[in-house]
């Protein structure tokens, strides 16, 4: 684990609890899904739909969200209020990008409420290479899995 990330873990002892609370709240409130924290088992990440966000300011780093394929469809269905067969081919991936945006913003605001941060727009990503130096939590949903990961690094700057 990088030194700055280790330092952040020491100063943010409630990181895991915060991620669990915020992710469960976001998924229930806007995506109508119940998320339960689960053991990490990452074989499913090879087929996951993932979104990546860089953030900078008083804290710098990267956020990664990965969603298993079946969960992607159920999350998109709940968010859009459409049956899965009514959705276009691109809508599930667009909803994952929006989920990443909402989740990242909510986490940053909860972890560091006095911060001044700028978040890039979410972009599609590949999950399997990105967990090595990150703090992360996995969740079980009725149709599959979700993984949330935050890696801190870089020089803090002003926004």
């Amino acid at each position, binding site marked *: 684990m990088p030194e700055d990330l280790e330092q952040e873990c020491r100063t943010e002892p409630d990181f895991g609890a915060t991620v669990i609370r915020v992710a469960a709240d976001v998924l229930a409130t806007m995506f109508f899904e119940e998320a339960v924290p689960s053991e990490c088992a990452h074989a499913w990440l090879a087929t996951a739909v993932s979104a990546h966000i860089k953030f900078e300011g008083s804290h710098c780093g990267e956020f990664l969200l990965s969603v298993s394929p079946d969960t992607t469809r159920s999350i*998109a269905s709940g968010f*859009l209020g459409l049956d899965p067969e009514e959705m276009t081919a691109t809508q599930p991936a667009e909803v994952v990008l*929006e989920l990443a945006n909402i989740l990242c913003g909510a986490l940053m605001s909860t972890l560091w409420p006095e*911060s001044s941060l700028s*978040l890039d727009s979410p972009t599609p990503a590949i999950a399997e290479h990105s967990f090595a130096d990150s703090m992360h939590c996995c969740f079980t949903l009725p149709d599959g899995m979700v993984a949330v990961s935050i890696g801190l690094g870089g020089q803090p700057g002003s926004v």
Partner: protein
Amino acid sequence: MPFSVMIVDDSPVMRGFIRRVMTLSGFEVGECLEASNGEEALACLKERSVDVILTDINMPKMNGEELLRRLETDTRLRSVPTLVISTDATKARILKMLSLGAQGYVTKPFSPETLREELERVLGDRNA
């Protein structure tokens, strides 16, 4: 009486969600205009008028901050209530947006009830 609304957000799925949640919450939506950034919103509002503007902050071309600045300098549009809907719940950001002229601020995630309450508040007498 239904209200006309302008939703400004670069995510089409988020615009759809806001539209749906307004209806789900019992808010009477009449004409609903959409724009993917501040520039598009201003271009559209040159020819149309709405009762309330709902805007995101982080958008390409023209973000929510700049949109609020432009609205404040427009004699016709400055009286239209503006509600910011953003993931950013930091105090600094909320105060900044309110100081630029936003009448309300809703942080994501939000429930249909929260959005309705905030819309009713910013619409004030028009909602009577």
